[in-house]
């Protein structure tokens, strides 16, 4: 029973990367889904949807891997966090179902096209909003006794989680706009630049608010960031964030087609790192750390064998399929 090797760090890395991939990948296509609602005509909607059609289902599969990965590697976190987020998870799942089938049915079930159009747009918005509330509730922590969540199913609704929910909508909107700038041209691209700018301003305000609000809520987090010498070690995070924000703004206003998307990805990565620094090593804030919530070494080892083989293959293939579908998307479904 005694663990010979400590697998927790590697599982933290795998799961941390997995969740980040999910946020990034489904983030941009949920963002595109929300911007879809602003498209003025059918032609534009076709182009916007086709820009993510080849990749969305792969993106969503990361959510399943994140879920079962958490269950297998950190079961205590799964058993506390998921019931605590009962309703946001329900809303997210139902919204994702609608949004997922809309891709297929919009083309196949043309008598109800506008129904599926709405399902796609609102589904994307609701799923994003729900994920934002989960993020807020996670940062605020859960009421726990023993190995169970003991709060109420409505605990997740707080001013803070409402704020993070709206912030995430703008964040995904920014990723989505960056993606559309990359994949489209002409009037659609110009509109994406305009939307991107609005989103970027909102995202920067949100990052500032969270950065002030979180340390005010929690003394440990304040001490971690602002005590000496931490403040010196950690200062690159806010500085890099400011630089990325400036770069994204320049890219949105300039000619660069990849810059806005790359900038948005950097902003997400830095925010993610910021949250990780604040909460480390907690996985059930503020009750259990990664080691306390981990499954047995045998469990983690058994799963690691296959994961180390399958995950790189999946990553390479994912990269390859993005490469295949590179270039601008057109209304008739082709790329050029």
């Amino acid at each position: 029973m005694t663990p010979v090797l400590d697998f927790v760090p590697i599982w933290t890395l795998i799961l941390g990367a997995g969740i980040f991939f999910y946020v990034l990948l489904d983030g941009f296509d949920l963002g595109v889904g929300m911007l879809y609602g602003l498209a003025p005509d059918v032609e534009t909607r076709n182009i916007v949807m086709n820009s993510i059609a080849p990749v969305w289902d792969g993106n969503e599969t990361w959510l399943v891997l994140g879920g079962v990965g958490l269950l297998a590697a950190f079961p205590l976190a799964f058993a506390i966090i998921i019931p605590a987020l009962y309703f946001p998870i329900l809303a997210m799942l139902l919204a994702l179902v609608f949004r997922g089938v809309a891709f297929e049915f919009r083309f196949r079930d043309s008598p109800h096209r506008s129904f599926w159009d709405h399902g796609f747009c609102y589904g994307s918005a609701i799923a994003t909003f729900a994920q934002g509330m989960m993020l807020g509730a996670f940062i605020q922590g859960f009421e726990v006794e023993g190995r169970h969540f003991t709060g109420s199913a409505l605990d997740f609704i707080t001013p803070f989680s409402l704020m993070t929910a709206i912030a995430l909508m703008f964040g995904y909107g920014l990723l989505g706009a960056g993606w559309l700038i990359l994949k489209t041209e002409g009037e659609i691209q110009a509109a994406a630049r305009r939307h991107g700018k609005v989103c970027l301003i909102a995202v920067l305000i949100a990052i500032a608010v969270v950065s002030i609000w979180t340390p005010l809520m929690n003394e440990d987090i304040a001490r971690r960031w602002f005590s000496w010498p931490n403040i010196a070690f950690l200062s690159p995070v806010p500085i890099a964030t400011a630089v990325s924000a400036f770069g994204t703004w320049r890219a949105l206003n300039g000619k660069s087609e990849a810059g806005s998307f790359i900038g948005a990805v950097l902003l997400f990565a830095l925010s993610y790192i910021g949250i990780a620094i604040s909460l480390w090593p907690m996985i059930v804030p503020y009750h259990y750390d990664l080691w306390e919530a981990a499954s047995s070494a045998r469990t983690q080892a058994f799963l690691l064998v296959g994961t180390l083989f399958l995950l790189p293959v999946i990553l390479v293939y994912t990269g390859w399929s993005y490469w295949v579908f590179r270039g601008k998307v057109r209304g008739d479904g082709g790329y050029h």
Partner: protein
Amino acid sequence: MELDPVFLSRLQFAWVVAWHILLPAFTVGLASYIAVLEGIHLFTGREIYLRISMFWIKIFSVSFGMGVVSGVIMPFQFGTNWSRFSDATADILGPLLAYEGLTAFFLEAAFLGVLLFGRKLVPPWAHFTAALMVALGTLFSSFWILAANSWMHTPAGYDIVEGRFVPRDWIEIIFNPSFPYRLAHTVTAFYVTTAFAVVAVAAWLLRSGRFAAEARIMMSMTLWLLSLLVPLQILIGDFHGLNTRDHQPAKLAAIEARWETARSVPLTLFAIPDEASETNRFEVDVPYLASLIVTHSWDGEIKGLKDWPREDRPPVAIPFFAFRIMVGIGLLMLAVVIVSWWLRFRGRLFDTAWFQRACFLMAPLSFIAVLAGWTTTEVGRQPWTIYGLMRTADSVPPSLSGAEVLISLLGYVVVYLIIFPAGVMVMANFVRKGPDSIESDSPIESGRPERPTRIQIQSEGESS
């Protein structure tokens, strides 16, 4: 009225998994059928097999897509409604479920794209390999999910440490006592279900008088397959029953509605089991038959439900009736297969109207058989989530209220009642258009843009 979170959570799980299981019941078999068709086309070069394959690939892509979206729901159910179960068992079941997820992802990422979009992009043998790998992938998925499910019925290879199950031997965990039988029985059921769906479509095309050549091949192939699989399935079912007798005798007692332990037990064809008075009403019995079936001897002993305290007994009526529905449909399937031999011998297989009607009806019945079989085994497992070790009532989160589960249940009901009929309509449209409409469709395939071939060729010339 007091809303019971345990009961409502069970209803919710039953609802989402029942819809979800219909998709693998179809896609596991269909993936293998497509691989066979692609293989025949590759080795014989006969184009008709290609047309049939492309026809089914379209339907496959819709059902696979719906399988993905309804599958995303499933792992979260373990957390939202069964968190204490998850906490207790995750060290064992977590990796099995994660391997299922990885396998499905691997298949989705690596080979489905080639199967759906790559016909012109890769050489024929590579496309055939992709079809084989997709089929293999669906079987791997079934393997892991059924390993996890079987372990809940017949746990093995574990230790219990501080109230949690921890792994001792992975081989024992995966190949737990009921797993080989359950895997064989379930996968065969999936193949049979798909085969009847194919037969039904072929029968419908024959009756509508279109695509007769394609329909004849579909019908002939699948009826040969069913000639093998239906008798085999009955045999496997028998072995599975013996396994249940050895490892889950209370479930078997419920299936047969036996209250008293006895020898030379009659088979109850019909009854209304009454749990309060521990008797059956309106019994219709066949002497000795239950002993013969369950123990393979005339005077074999079958345990009765009264051997267990009431709180350890499964519900009786549901497994009893569900089992009879499953077996009844199985016997109808056997009848269809035997009639098909006779019609084939007489040379009337493709022009007997009443037989075509019967074949058409068998498709929904075969899906119902899958659901009935699954209901039998899962309700028969009650009142346990881990048989004999962890109660269903102790598996839900303590924070959850009945009203909350009612809201989520209603949400799932409403959404599934919209998307599943819509999905069936889309697939029915493909059937109505028939196998010929393959090349001349909209430029958007399954919501995805046109062939990667075009993209590659065109992106060579431009660098925008």
